C-alpha cells in the first residue's frame, strides 16, 4: 500500500514538474523579443556598433531588469556586403522569430536588405546608413542617424559662410548621385554657384580629372568630394601638394578605415600623422565633444567598459537599442498574436515618436522620426588639424522650441531653415591655459594663487571677456589682451591672469595625499546650446612663451607639479525658474565649462613618515610590553600608558595641523591603535589575575599568544595601509 502511494506521489510530482516546465517555457517564450543585429562583425567599426548596443543593454539590466530579460540579441555578420546582407535578410525573414533588426552599416546593404524586410514585415533601424533612399518609401525601415539631406544642408551652409562657388567631384554610383542631387538642390536655395561637376566611373577617369584640377589656375572656393572611400584615398594623395585647395568631403572622410590607411601611408613616408588629411573639411553625424551631459556620461561608461574612446557609430547604435527597448516597453504585445501583428504594433509605436514631445531622450539627440522614418538633426562640420577632426567655429543645432522670432534669426544669419526644421547657430570657441606659476597654496583656507595665460580662438562676433571663474576669490575681469591676432576671420587673443582661486582640498589620505588645483570658467550668459568651449588643438600661441616651461612654485615649497591637463565638460543646474508647469519637468540650465587641472605631489618622501613616526613608536612600545612586564607588572602598564599618551599627542598634533569635518585615513590608523592598546591592557590584567591564582602555564600561553598575535595584527594593518596608499598613486 505504502509503495503504491509513493508511486502515485512520484508520478504526480513528475506531472506537476512537467506542467510547470511547460508553463514556464510558454511564459518565457511569449515574453521574449528577438532583436537581430546585422553589422560587419570583423571590422573595428562593427565592433564599435555592437559595443554601443551592449552598453545600453547592460545599463538596462540595472535599471529595468525585467525588460532586459525580454530582449534577446542575435548578432549576424553582413560583412558590409550587399549580397550577404540580402541573404541574411532572407534568413531572418524566413525564420519568423525576429521582431527588430538593428543595422545595416552601409547604404547599399541597408537599402537592399530593407526591400526584403519590407516584404516580410520586419522592423529595421539603422544607426549608420545615411542614404535618403534607405528609409524613404520603406515604412519598415527607421534611421537614428541623420540622412544625407541633413548632411548636404550643413555642408552647403558651411560653404556659403566661406565662399560663393563650389566644384563637385563625384563617382557615378547610385549612392553618390542621390547625395549630389540633394546638395545641388540646397545649394541653389542658398545661392551657391556650382562652377563645374566632375564625374567618373573608373580609376583612369579619376586620374584624368585630378590632373585637370591640378593644372588649372583658377580655383573654386571649395571642391566637394562625393566619392567612394577608395577614391578618397587616391584624391587626397594625388592633391597632397595643393594646400591652396579647399577640399570638403562627405562623412566618409571620418571613417576610421580611411583615416587609418592615410596615416599609415604618411608614416611609411616619414611624414607627420595627418599629413594627407590636414586642412580637409568634412562632416560627422555626431561628435561627443559637442553633445550634452548624457553623452559625457556615455563616454565615461564606454571607456570604463571597453577601455577605448567611443565612435559616433557606437553612440548611434546605443540610441537605436534604447529606442527599440522603449518601444517594446510601451507596446502591449500579446503572446497569442501573430509575429506580423506584433511587429505592426511595434512599428506603430515607433511611428508615434514623431515630435520632441513624443520622443526618447537619446545621447545623440531627442529621438523621433520625420515622415520618412528618419531622425533630423544637423551634422557637425569641421576640419582636420594635426590629424584630428576639429569642429568648425560655427555649428548648427536643431531647435525644437517654438520661437516667434524665427524669421528675424534666419535673416540675421543666426539660424538656417533646412528640411522644414530650424537649425540654430552654435559657437565653438577653442581655448587653452598655460600655467606660469602657482603660489601661496593654503590648505587651511582652501585657496591658491595662479599666474597663467588664457587664450581664445574664435570667429568674429563673440564676447570672450564675458566669462565667469566660479572659484575665483574675487571676480576676475579680463582686461586688455596681451597679444591679439586675426587671420582668415579667426581671432586669437591671449590674456594674462593672476588671481586667487578657491580649491577643494581633500585631505582624507593626509599625509599621503596628492591634490588637484583646479581653474574652471564658463560663459556668463551663453548656455551650452549656444556655446561650447573646446581644448585648442592648434597649439599654444607664441605669446604664451616657452611651451615646455614648467610652472614655478613658491620658493621652499614642499610641493612639485606632477601633471597639467585641460578638458571641457558641462555644468548643469536644475530649476523650475518659477514656471509652475516646470515643477514636474524642471528646466535644465547648462553651460560649457573649461577646466585646467594642476596635479601636485609632495617633494619630500619622508614627510608622511615624520607625521606618523610617534604612532609607530607607540606601536613599538605596546609590542615590548610583555618583555617589560617580565621584570615588573607595573612597568608593563607604564609602557602602555606611555604608548597611549604618545599616540594621543600625535593625533592631537595632526588634528591641529589638518582639522577637517570627517574621519581621515590617519584617524582609522589611530582607531586601530586604540583597539590594540585595549587588547594589550586586557591581556596584562588577565595575566596578573592568572598569576595571582598561580596559573603560570595559562599566563605563559596568554603571553605567547599576545607576542604572536600583536605583530601579526600590526603587519596586517600596515599591509592594508600600504595597499590603500598605492591605490592613490
Amino acid at each position, binding site marked *: 500500500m505504502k509503495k503504491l502511494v509513493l508511486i502515485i506521489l512520484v508520478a504526480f510530482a513528475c506531472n506537476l514538474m512537467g506542467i510547470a516546465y511547460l508553463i514556464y517555457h510558454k511564459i518565457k517564450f511569449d515574453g521574449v523579443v528577438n532583436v537581430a543585429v546585422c553589422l560587419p562583425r570583423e571590422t573595428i567599426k562593427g565592433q564599435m556598433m555592437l559595443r554601443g548596443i551592449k552598453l545600453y543593454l547592460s545599463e538596462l539590466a540595472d535599471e529595468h531588469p525585467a525588460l532586459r530579460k525580454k530582449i534577446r540579441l542575435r548578432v549576424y555578420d553582413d560583412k558590409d556586403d550587399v549580397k550577404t546582407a540580402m541573404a541574411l535578410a532572407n534568413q531572418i525573414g524566413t525564420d519568423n522569430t525576429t521582431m527588430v533588426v538593428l543595422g545595416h552599416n552601409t547604404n547599399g546593404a541597408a537599402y537592399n536588405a530593407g526591400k526584403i524586410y519590407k516584404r516580410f514585415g520586419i522592423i529595421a533601424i539603422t544607426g549608420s546608413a545615411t542614404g535618403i533612399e534607405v528609409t524613404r518609401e520603406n515604412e519598415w525601415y527607421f534611421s537614428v542617424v541623420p540622412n544625407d539631406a541633413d548632411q548636404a544642408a550643413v555642408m552647403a551652409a558651411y560653404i556659403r559662410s566661406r565662399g560663393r562657388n563650389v566644384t563637385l567631384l563625384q563617382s557615378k554610383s547610385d549612392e553618390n548621385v542621390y547625395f549630389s542631387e540633394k546638395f545641388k538642390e540646397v545649394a541653389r536655395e542658398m545661392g551657391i554657384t556650382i562652377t563645374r561637376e566632375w564625374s567618373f566611373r573608373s580609376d583612369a577617369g579619376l586620374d584624368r580629372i585630378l590632373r585637370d584640377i591640378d593644372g588649372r589656375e583658377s580655383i573654386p572656393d571649395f571642391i566637394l568630394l562625393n566619392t567612394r572611400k577608395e577614391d578618397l584615398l587616391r584624391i587626397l594623395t594625388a592633391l597632397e601638394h595643393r594646400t591652396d585647395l579647399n577640399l570638403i568631403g562627405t562623412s566618409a572622410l571620418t571613417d576610421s578605415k580611411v583615416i587609418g590607411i592615410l596615416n599609415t601611408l604618411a608614416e611609411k613616408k616619414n611624414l607627420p600623422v595627418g599629413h594627407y588629411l590636414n586642412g580637409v573639411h568634412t562632416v560627422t553625424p555626431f561628435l561627443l565633444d559637442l553633445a550634452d551631459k548624457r553623452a559625457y556620461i556615455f563616454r565615461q561608461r564606454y571607456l570604463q567598459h571597453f577601455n577605448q574612446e567611443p565612435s559616433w557609430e557606437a553612440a548611434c547604435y546605443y540610441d537605436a537599442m534604447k529606442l527599440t527597448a522603449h518601444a517594446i516597453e510601451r507596446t502591449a504585445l500579446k503572446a497569442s498574436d501573430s509575429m506580423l501583428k506584433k511587429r505592426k504594433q511595434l512599428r506603430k509605436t515607433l511611428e508615434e515618436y514623431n515630435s520632441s514631445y513624443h520622443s526618447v531622450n537619446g545621447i545623440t539627440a531627442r529621438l523621433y522620426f520625420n515622415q520618412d522614418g528618419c531622425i533630423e538633426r544637423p551634422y557637425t562640420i569641421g576640419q582636420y588639424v594635426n590629424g584630428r577632426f576639429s569642429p568648425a567655429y560655427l555649428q548648427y543645432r536643431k531647435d525644437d522650441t517654438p520661437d516667434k522670432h524665427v524669421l528675424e534669426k534666419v535673416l540675421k544669419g543666426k539660424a538656417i531653415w533646412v528640411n522644414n526644421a530650424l537649425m540654430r547657430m552654435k559657437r565653438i570657441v577653442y581655448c587653452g591655459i598655460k600655467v606660469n606659476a602657482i603660489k601661496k597654496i593654503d590648505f587651511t583656507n582652501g585657496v591658491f594663487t595662479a599666474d597663467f595665460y588664457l587664450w581664445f580662438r574664435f570667429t568674429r562676433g563673440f564676447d570672450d571677456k564675458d566669462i565667469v571663474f566660479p572659484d575665483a576669490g574675487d571676480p576676475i575681469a579680463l582686461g586688455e589682451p596681451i597679444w591679439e591676432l586675426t587671420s582668415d576671420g579667426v581671432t586669437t587673443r591671449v590674456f594674462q591672469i593672476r588671481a586667487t582661486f578657491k580649491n577643494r582640498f581633500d585631505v582624507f589620505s593626509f599625509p599621503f595625499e596628492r591634490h588637484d588645483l583646479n581653474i574652471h570658467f564658463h560663459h556668463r550668459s551663453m548656455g551650452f546650446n549656444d556655446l561650447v568651449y573646446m581644448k585648442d588643438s592648434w597649439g599654444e600661441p607664441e605669446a604664451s612663451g616657452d611651451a615646455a616651461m614648467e610652472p614655478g612654485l613658491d620658493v621652499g615649497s614642499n610641493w612639485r607639479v606632477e601633471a597639467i591637463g585641460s578638458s571641457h565638460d558641462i555644468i548643469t543646474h536644475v530649476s523650475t525658474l518659477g514656471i509652475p508647469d516646470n*515643477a514636474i519637468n524642471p528646466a535644465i540650465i547648462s553651460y560649457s565649462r573649461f577646466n585646467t587641472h594642476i596635479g601636485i605631489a609632495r617633494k619630500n618622501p619622508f614627510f608622511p613618515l615624520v607625521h606618523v613616526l610617534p604612532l609607530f613608536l607607540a606601536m613599538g612600545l605596546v609590542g615590548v610590553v610583555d618583555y617589560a612586564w617580565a621584570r615588573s*607588572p607595573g612597568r608593563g602598564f607604564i609602557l602602555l600608558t606611555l604608548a597611549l599618551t604618545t599616540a*594621543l599627542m600625535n593625533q592631537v598634533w595632526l588634528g591641529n595641523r589638518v582639522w577637517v569635518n570627517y574621519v581621515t585615513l590617519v584617524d582609522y590608523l589611530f582607531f586601530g591603535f*586604540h583597539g590594540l592598546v*585595549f587588547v594589550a591592557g586586557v591581556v596584562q*590584567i588577565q595575566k596578573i589575575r592568572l598569576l595571582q591564582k598561580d596559573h603560570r602555564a595559562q599566563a605563559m600561553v596568554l603571553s605567547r599568544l599576545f607576542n604572536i598575535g600583536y605583530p601579526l595584527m600590526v603587519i596586517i594593518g600596515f599591509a592594508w595601509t600600504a595597499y590603500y596608499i598605492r591605490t592613490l598613486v
Partner: protein
Amino acid sequence: MKKKLLILGLIAGCNLVWIAMLSSSGNQFARSFLKQLQKKDRIVVALAGPMTGGGFLNGRDMERGARMAIQDALDAGRLSNLQIRLSIFDDQNEVRTAMKIASEISLNREVVAVLGHYKNPTTMAASRIYKKNGIPMITGSATEKKATDKNPWAFGTVPDDVDQAVSIITHVKAMKRHITVIYEKDVYDNSLMASIEANAAEAGVEVRYKWELKGVGENADARLEQIISDLRAIHDPGVIIIATQSREAAAIIRRINHPGTDYTIIGTDTFATAPFYKAMTSLPQERAKPGYYVNGIYSTTPFIAEWAGPETNLFVDNYREMYDESPSWVAACYYDAMKVLIEAIELKHINGRQFREDRVHIRAALSRFSSPEEAVNGVAGQIFFNKEGRVKRQFAMGYYENQRFRPAFTQYQVIADEKESVFKKAIGSNVTVVAGKVFSQKKLVYTGMDINGVNSLNVISGEFIVDFFIWFRFVGDFDEKELIFENSEAPIRLKEPVLDITRDGITIRAYQVKAKFKQALRYDEFPFEKHHLIIRFHHKLQTDRKLVFIPDYLSMHAYLSPEYRQISLENTSGWKVNNVTQTRDRFMRQISSINLAYSRYNADISVERMDGRFALKILIPLFSLALFLFFSHLLSLDLARTRLFIIASIVLGAGICHYFLRVIHPSSTIIQVEFNFFAIYALGILSVLVIGVGILCRRMDTPRWINGFNLIGQGIHGLVIACLLVMNIIKLW
C-alpha cells in the same frame, strides 16, 4: 510577604518620583500620566454641522479645526483641571434636522456651548432655539448677517456677507466696470446680494445681469441650463459672480470655464471649500490636466494658509503634518471658534457643574472680547466681536492655479475711512474707495529659490557661499533690484535675469546668484550639531503694507519631486545638505520712533555632518583613556605608584586634548563633548581617592575595607563609562 510588599512599594514609589521628576523637566509622557491621575472637571461642547451627506467634508474640517484647538491648548499646558469633550451632532445641512438637534443640545445638561452650524439657513434656525434656551453658540462658517445679529447668544468667528460683498466689489473695481451675478437665495439669503448691489452702485460698477438659481430636482437643472444658455449669448458679461452651493457652482464652472474661454469669475467662500474642490477635481478633464476648469477662478475666503501671517505657520504646519493637506478656511475658523471658547471657559473658571450658570458665564466672557485690546489671537486674525457678535475682518481673495487655491496677486486692506481724504491723497493712486472705506493695494510676489550648491562652509566663522536661482512671479511692476539680503557679506545686486517672460499678465523673472553669506552658528552640541544656513531678504523701500513675498511652493520642484532634493555641497567640507525650507516672516525696522515692518523671505538650508563617524574621532581616544583609568583599579595597591603614574598621564593627556579642542572651537559656553572630558577628570580624582583610602585602610590594618573601596571605585567607574557611552550613542543616533 511583608518584604515583598515593601519592595513593591519602594519600586512604585521610585517610579512615581521618576515620573514626577520627568514631568517637571517637561517630559510629555510623564505629564500626561500625572494628569491622568488628577481628577478633572468635564466640560462638553457640542459641534453641529454636516457630518454626512454632500457637505460632509465641511463637517470634517469643522471637527478637525475644533479638535486641533483643544490639542494645542493641552500642549501649551492649559486646561490643567478641565477635560473638554467634543460632542458631535450631524445636522446634514438641513434646517429641520438642525432645529431638532438644537433642541436636543439645549436640553442636554452637560453641554455648555455650541460650535456651528455650517450653513446660513441651519445656523439661523438653530440660533433662535439657542437664544430661547440661553446657550452660547459660535459659528465659524455662517456668513449671513442675520445668523448672529440681534441674538446676544450667537457669535461668529467668520466675517459676514457684508464684508464679503465689499471684498468682491473692491476686486471687481480693479478688473471691470460691470458684473453678472448668479446666486442662490437659499444659500446667501438677502444680505450678500443686497450688499453687492449697494456697494457696486456706490463704486460705479453696474450689475448688468442677475440670475437667481431656484427650484428643486429637474426644475433646478432646467433653470441652470437656461442661465448658462443666456450667459453664453451675452457678448461681455463683465465679472461673473457666482454665489451658490458647491454642487451648483461646480456644474456652472464645468459648463462655462475651460481653455479657450476668457470669463473672469469670482466665487464666494463656497469656492474655497473642500466639497467644491472635490467636485471639480473628480472630473476627468481636471484629472487629465490639473486646472483644466478651475484655473484662473477667483474666490473670496476668510483664510488662506499662504496668505495668513507668519504667526499661523505653526498651525498650518501642524495641520499639514496631522492631515496631510493644507487647512481650509472652515478648519481655521472653527479652530478660532474653539480657541476663543477655551479662553472664555478659562476666564470664567467654568467647571461644568452648573450648566445654566456656565452658559451664562461663557456668553458674558465672549461678550468681553469686544475690542482689539481684549482680542484673542486667532489663526485667521484677531478675534473680537462687534455689537452683532461678529469678528470684523476683510475677506482675502484667492485664485486657482493648477488645482491649487492660492492668494491672488493683489489684495486690499482698509487704511482709513473715506472722510479722512487727506490720508487718501497722501497715499496716492494706489487706493480705492468702496463702502465708505479707503482700501490700499497690497502686491503679492510669489518667490522661490532653487539651491544649486553650498560651498566653502566654515562653521567657525559662520561663512558660506550659496549658488542659487531665485525667481519672482508677479502682476504689474516689481523692482527686484531693490532687495536687501540681510546676511550677505557684500551687497547683492541682481543683474541680468536668466529668464524674463510675461504670460497671461503674470511676469516671471529669474536670476542666478552666487554670493557669500555670514551668520553666527552655534556649535554647543559639537560634535553632534546640525546647522541652519539662512538666506533672508526684504525689500528696501516697500513695507509689508504694500508688498508681501509668498513662498511659491507651486513652482518649487523640490517640494514636488523628492529626487531633485539633493543639493551639492562639496564633500570635502564634511557637511551635506539635509533639507531646504522656505518661509516668510517680517523684518522690523525703527526709523525715528516709527516701527516699519517689511515682508521678509527666508530660505533655511539645513546641513548635517556627512560622516556620521566624525564624533568617533574624539570619542574613541577619550574612551580609551577612561578604560585605562579603569584598568588602574585592577592593579593591586602594591603598585600604587604605577597607578598614580597612569592616572596622572591620562588626566594630563585628556587636559591637552581638551585645550586643543577649545583652541579649535573657541566657544564661550560649554560644548557637548566637554562633558566627556569632565567625566575623565572626575574619574581621575576618584581613582586617586580610591588609592588614598586604600593606603589609609592598610595603615589601619583593615584589608577587607581595601577591597570594598576598590570595588566601589570600580563600580562607580564602570557606571560612569556606561552612562557616557549611552549618552554619546543616543546623540550619535
